[in-house]
């Protein structure tokens, strides 16, 4: 289970660091926070190639849900720009 712990700690540290940096930069748009979180989570998940099949399947489902949220934000932004 060491690989699980290392993966979770990496993602938790990255998300926390991103929040601190974006707050320091004065970022106030929630969609920017969310988009960066998603990209980071997806990249780290892809980097951990040695997960077992069951874990990979579960994480793929989570990635799909998160990516769905990302697409929703993107669509809303496109609609906002076009309107």
């Amino acid at each position: 289970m060491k690989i699980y712990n290392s993966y979770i700690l990496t993602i938790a540290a990255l998300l926390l660091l991103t929040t601190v940096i974006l707050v320091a930069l004065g970022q106030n748009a929630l969609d920017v926070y969310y988009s960066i979180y998603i990209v980071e989570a997806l990249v780290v998940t892809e980097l951990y190639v040695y997960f077992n099949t069951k874990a990979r399947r579960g994480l793929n489902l989570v990635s799909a849900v998160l990516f769905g949220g990302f697409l929703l934000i993107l669509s809303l932004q496109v609609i906002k720009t076009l309107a």
Partner: protein
Amino acid sequence: MLNKNLYTWSGLGLLIAGSLLSLTSYFILLITWLTALGISMLILSFILLALGRTVPKLSPEVSALLLQTGIDNLATLVEELGIKSKAIYLPSSITNSQPQALIPLHTNSSPPVITKPLPQRLIVRYGTSPDDTGLLLTTVGTTATSMLESTPGPTSAELESALTSLFVGILGVADRTRATHHENYISVEIYNPRIENKTTWFHQCLGGPLASVVASVAAEAWNKPVTIKQEEYPRGRCSIELEVLG
């Protein structure tokens, strides 16, 4: 049904805390960064819940109990027969089922040549001479090889990838592996192994659990019999040298 383990509990805790934090900060406090922090907690909770479902229900203690019982019985058998020869790890094409280890009952200077598939029995004849008799055993490597998604090819890169997937991703008993191949010899380094090394008669015959897994995977990859030439445990490492026979 949720598999209640530390990952699931942590995931549920973060799910509740993240939902409360993001909703409160978005609708009442109107603080964006606090809402973002809540969202990041929700993302983590989804990941933890997904991983929690994949943790085996059987505790490591129960697994160790079952493994130790099997190993003790095999060790007794090997020691009682007074076998001193090194085990030969055979690929599934020779055993007709899964990769297994053959321990010749008589020690010969040259390794045995196995030309035809062996029957699925404990005591098998592998040659024409009356002395060509041995024990065909199921080892830790036999079971570990079945956990691999696909059989690796006969290259050091593919062997290294398969071993890393097995030791780091599936079994969680090491940090990384490295494999090199030169002619009939394969060297494998396992970094930070978390399985203790024992120097019993049985282990000298079959090799340690890590070496057994490496030999079984290598036998499958090369589709040839393999023996463990050397097994050392220098500081924070396990160094295994294999010889591909035939």
